[in-house]
């Protein structure tokens, strides 16, 4: 791991740890996250970890640029990878159905498999939460089976229902609330992600592991799921 510190804005530095996305990055990103929080203390305004980077927004009125640089170096100096098994494991029940998952067909067809096989493969391993972003509690997870990798829709939907589970390339995610979006939607979960996010305790945090499970409509409804179909195109 070779850390690069880049100027990103007047009061923002980017710590770049990796060049490519890999699950093994997470142990280092999480460790750096902790170390940076500790070293900056109340001089930290915001810290945004992502797949390969951590963005450090510091209080430039109280902390000199050189000092900020120094603190980053110091935080990274004796970094040891964090324990990735310490992350929580979540099971997210999903109702996979074309009414709420209009791209089931598209993704299956591209992969040359049936819809049942697609669902089985989406559910057959744990995904790592790489980053939160886009919306409160929106977790970017991966990596999706290479054969299922499907690019985003050419024209994003104006409204994707809350709880929608989607795929974009080798990433998968759940929309915590209604929003525009261009991911390939496969199904829907009744688990309330947004409520936990707005209280400051998002269900997922980076480093957590998520396993999707397939549930029938009756179970989805019993969990409080909304069966309103998702428009195929808008």
């Amino acid at each position, binding site marked *: 791991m070779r850390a690069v510190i880049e*100027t*990103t804005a007047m009061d923002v530095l980017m710590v770049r740890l990796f060049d490519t996305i890999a699950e093994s990055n997470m142990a280092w990103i999480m460790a750096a996250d902790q170390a940076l929080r500790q070293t900056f203390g109340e001089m930290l305004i915001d810290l*945004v970890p992502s797949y390969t*980077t951590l*963005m450090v927004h510091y209080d430039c009125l109280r902390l000199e640029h050189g000092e900020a640089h120094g603190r980053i170096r110091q935080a990274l100096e004796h970094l040891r990878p964090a324990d990735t098994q310490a992350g929580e494991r979540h099971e997210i029940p999903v109702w996979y159905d074309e009414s709420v998952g209009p791209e089931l067909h598209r993704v299956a067809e591209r992969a040359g498999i049936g819809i049942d096989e697609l669902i089985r493969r989406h559910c057959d391993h744990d995904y790592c939460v790489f980053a939160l972003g886009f919306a409160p509690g929106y977790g970017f997870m991966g990596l999706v089976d290479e054969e299922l990798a499907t690019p985003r829709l050419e024209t994003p939907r104006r409204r994707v229902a809350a709880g929608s589970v989607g795929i974009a390339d080798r990433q998968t995610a759940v929309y915590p609330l209604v929003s525009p979006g261009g991911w390939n939607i496969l199904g829907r979960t009744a688990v309330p992600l947004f409520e936990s*996010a707005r209280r400051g305790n*998002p269900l997922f945090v980076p480093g957590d592991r998520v396993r999707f499970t397939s549930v029938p409509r009756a179970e989805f409804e019993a969990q409080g799921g909304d069966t309103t179909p998702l428009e195929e195109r808008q």
Partner: protein
Amino acid sequence: MTSSLPAGMKVVQAGPLALVEDGGRLGVRHLGVTQGGAADWVSFYWSNWLLGNPLNSTALEVVVGGGLVLEAECAARLALTGADLDATLDDEPLLPGASFAVRPGQRLTFRQPREGLRAYLAFPGGLEAPQVLGSASTTPRERLGGLHEDGRPLTVGDRLTWRGAPAVERHLPPGSTVWLPGSDCRLELVAGAQIGVFTGASLYAAFNARWRVDDRADRMGVRLLGPGLASHASSMISEGIPLGAVQVPPDGQPIVLLNDRQTIGGYPRLGALTPLAAARLAQCLPGQEVRLVATSRARALAEHRRVLGRFR
């Protein structure tokens, strides 16, 4: 309405967009929650300064105006700064940049922009509004903040109440009103490390072209129209996005990201506007011509400190 209601103002007509804002929702971007806060923070600070409030006190950001009507239920001193939205108190014109007294029954009306886009209305001691993740900032897309904690902009029937106390009568120091963009709007930009992915011709164009503010502009981001900028990387691995980031999607037209931007993204960036330039851009109407001007981080910080030094 009975006399037992607490004193405040009621929203008689809503207008297109009026938002309860403060200094922003800080320390939560790692949760995917946007920064929010007053987009033109300089005018916002002045509105609070005029009343002797702490500078980050919760105030109202009135975008465009467009028929927002507020009716006073009690006597109070308020302050208006930022854009000139052709505001009146009953029938008297109300110019931004001063505090003014309202009497019960008087109506404050915002019409159309004459200069600038966002007006700030401050209240004695700041507005009363619930804190969501440490801030009252309204972010409609995230359904967070505002009077009802659900990200809803002001709606007919809403009531604005304030904390009360500091309502000193102050006057803006000379020079502080010359803030709005004007005909030659320069936006200072601190170059980012990714600037090297742009072609030489694109960099020349970026800093020499006249850019025009597109009508696709809101608190999330503002598109600039002009020569197409080309980079060697069409998209990158998503990473944190700072305030004022100038990102260039494949169509070559830059988008400057403001307060309600997504927390992470993956387009190549020229760099980031200074916080002062971001505030100025937030006041630009569609069609406004702007120029990107390179500055250094140190110069940007010196200018930032100089402006903050005026709020004494």
